[in-house]
């Protein structure tokens, strides 16, 4: 451990001399790597003038298939999901175990991150107002994908000798294919996913988060932190270090408790801004609908808007990535499907509620003043939209962004760790190595620019969708059978409300 600290101090000393030079040189180094990874993963085909990345197509087809195959579970299971979260079906004899509410809250604080504030702004900048429409559609379809993956996550989890549980796509891919008589393929898929989530955890759940938190801090500081990304990065990395390696759980606990309130706070003020822009609301809403089908001013037209909407939705709600099923696997339930139902609510809360609210804040501001944000994009753009009415808002927004980023990083450090332990076993030494790597990337995220970060994050995350969704197709019949059996039990009253 001492060596790490010495290394950090050395970097710090060196960096202080080099000042802004560090940020630049790291940027120059990472940009081509990011571009390469991006090109490989986002292999594009030209459809009617729009560039369609195959991986986005892969996700859309998956989500549509699961929605139909599960009989529109995203609509028909919604009420039951709320009853489950409320605890209507909770057996008092099992009290003290992880509740449905807790599993949902944990998974949601992992997904509600900077994507909900900054990602939407990026979608609107590139894809126009119409991207919002497709973002919502993607959120709706993503509910079905989540249902399938979270049910499987609970069904095929593994109990460790110490009584803790490990679950997620790597486990259901391996065991599920084994059950279907393809043990070799299952092993390969499990490993593929584990490698993917481990690397992906460094992007979407790490660099992108710390980068945008730094950007917002810098905006609030009036650019005073320009060139000091490395410093902010080191501090952030230090706090993450303290939590995941130092075992200072109190920080994580406090964050977990504060984040839901920050989310409510954010939505509350966002709705106020929308109300203050009320005269622009009809126009903003109509822009969303017309833009969705005409794609005016967007590269690739309507299809371009659709692609961007879908891409950002998945980036935000993580449906198809399989990460949430790792979090949900902790719930002990006789009926794995119940976790599927509960997880339906995640894309709903994350994308259909929070992202839409952000999109409307930006949309109504754009109608009122097309150039309200100048050149700003990402979090800075959302911040500018709030600032038009509440000059003080960027400060709490920076705080919220920091907390969102932090809680997402903590959750993802766990997801990545599960991938790592799947590959390398539960050894303490290995886990520490992983955690140090994770912290290093937190710092790196603040140093490099948004463009390359976004490319590399997107690329890495979408890479894991390939094995995950392929597995979901194969295992969907199992989920459907579970769902039918569960529904039958509900009907006969074998499973009934306790309250």
């Amino acid at each position: 451990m001492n060596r790490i600290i010495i290394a950090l101090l050395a970097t710090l000393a060196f960096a202080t001399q080099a000042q802004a030079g560090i940020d630049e040189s790291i940027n120059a180094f990472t940009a081509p790597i990011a571009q390469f990874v991006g090109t490989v993963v986002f292999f594009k085909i030209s459809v009617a003038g729009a560039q369609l990345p195959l991986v986005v197509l892969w996700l859309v087809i998956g989500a549509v298939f699961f929605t139909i195959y599960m009989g529109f579970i995203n609509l028909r299971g919604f009420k039951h999901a709320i009853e489950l979260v409320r605890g209507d079906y909770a057996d008092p004899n099992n009290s003290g175990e992880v509740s449905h509410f807790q599993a949902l809250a944990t998974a949601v604080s992992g997904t509600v991150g900077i994507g909900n504030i900054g990602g939407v702004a990026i979608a609107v900048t590139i894809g126009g107002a119409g991207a919002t429409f497709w973002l919502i559609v993607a959120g709706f379809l993503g509910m079905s994908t989540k249902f399938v993956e979270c049910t499987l996550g609970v069904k095929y989890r593994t109990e460790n000798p110490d009584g803790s549980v490990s679950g997620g796509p790597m486990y259901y891919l391996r065991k599920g294919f084994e059950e279907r008589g393809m043990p070799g393929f299952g092993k390969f898929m499990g490993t593929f996913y584990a490698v993917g989530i481990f690397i992906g955890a460094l992007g979407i759940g790490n660099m992108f988060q710390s980068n945008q938190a730094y950007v917002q801090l810098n905006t609030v500081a009036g650019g005073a932190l320009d060139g000091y990304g490395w410093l902010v990065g080191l501090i952030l990395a230090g706090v993450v270090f303290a939590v995941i390696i130092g075992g200072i759980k109190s920080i994580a606990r406090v964050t977990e408790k504060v984040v839901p309130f920050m989310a409510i706070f954010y939505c509350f003020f966002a709705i106020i801004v929308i109300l203050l822009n009320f005269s622009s609301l009809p126009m903003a809403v109509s822009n969303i609908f017309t833009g969705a089908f005409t794609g005016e001013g967007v590269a690739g037209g309507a299809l371009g808007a659709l692609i961007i909407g879908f891409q950002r939705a998945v980036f935000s709600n993580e449906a198809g990535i399989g990460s949430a099923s790792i979090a949900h696997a902790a719930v002990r339930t006789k009926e794995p499907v119940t976790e599927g139902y509960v997880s339906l609510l995640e894309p709903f809360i994350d994308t259909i509620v929070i992202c839409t609210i952000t999109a409307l804040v930006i949309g109504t501001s754009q109608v009122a003043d097309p150039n309200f944000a100048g050149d700003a994009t990402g979090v800075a753009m959302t911040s500018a939209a709030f600032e038009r009415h509440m000059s003080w808002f960027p400060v709490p927004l920076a705080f919220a962004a920091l907390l969102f980023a932090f809680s997402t990083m903590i959750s993802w450090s766990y997801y990545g760790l599960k991938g790592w332990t799947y590959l390398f076993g539960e050894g303490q030494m290995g886990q520490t190595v992983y955690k140090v790597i994770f912290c290093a990337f937190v710092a790196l995220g603040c140093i490099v620019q948004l463009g390359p970060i976004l490319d590399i994050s997107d690329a890495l995350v979408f890479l894991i969708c390939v094995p995950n969704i392929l597995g979901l197709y194969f295992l969907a019949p199992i989920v459907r059978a579970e769902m039918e059996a569960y529904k039958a039990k509900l009907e006969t009253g074998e499973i009934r409300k306790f309250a």
Partner: protein
Amino acid sequence: MSENVILLAIDGSSGAERALAHTRRRAELGGAKVVVAYVIEWSPYSFNTPEENAERHSRRESEIAKAHDSVIGPALSYLTDGGIVVDSIVRHGNPTETLIAVAKETSAAQIVIGRRGQSGLKSLIFGSVAGNLIQTAPVPVMVVP
């Protein structure tokens, strides 16, 4: 109410000790069965880290085991020494709500609980289980000072 059941709520405090002694005297006189309950404070609506969730099951097991060993066990042997028929329940949840649920399940004729004797600010913020029980329990509540 076929049998005379006393629900004794204990938490390992000195008030609970006094409630235990009182319950034994009562039960000996009236020939009552005593159900000893220990509620581990817990809420299904808290926010946890993924790691806490993953460890929750083993944590719960050890919490229950600890309650049996250090609180329930001694109380039960103290009562059985007096020739009293006993039963015990350890459950997670909101203490007041859980005790009421247990009272209903066991058809208890009354609930006996010790008083912590906390006053002022502390009870204002955290409330008092005995106080809440008096307000909401469906059966008579005896608070032992």
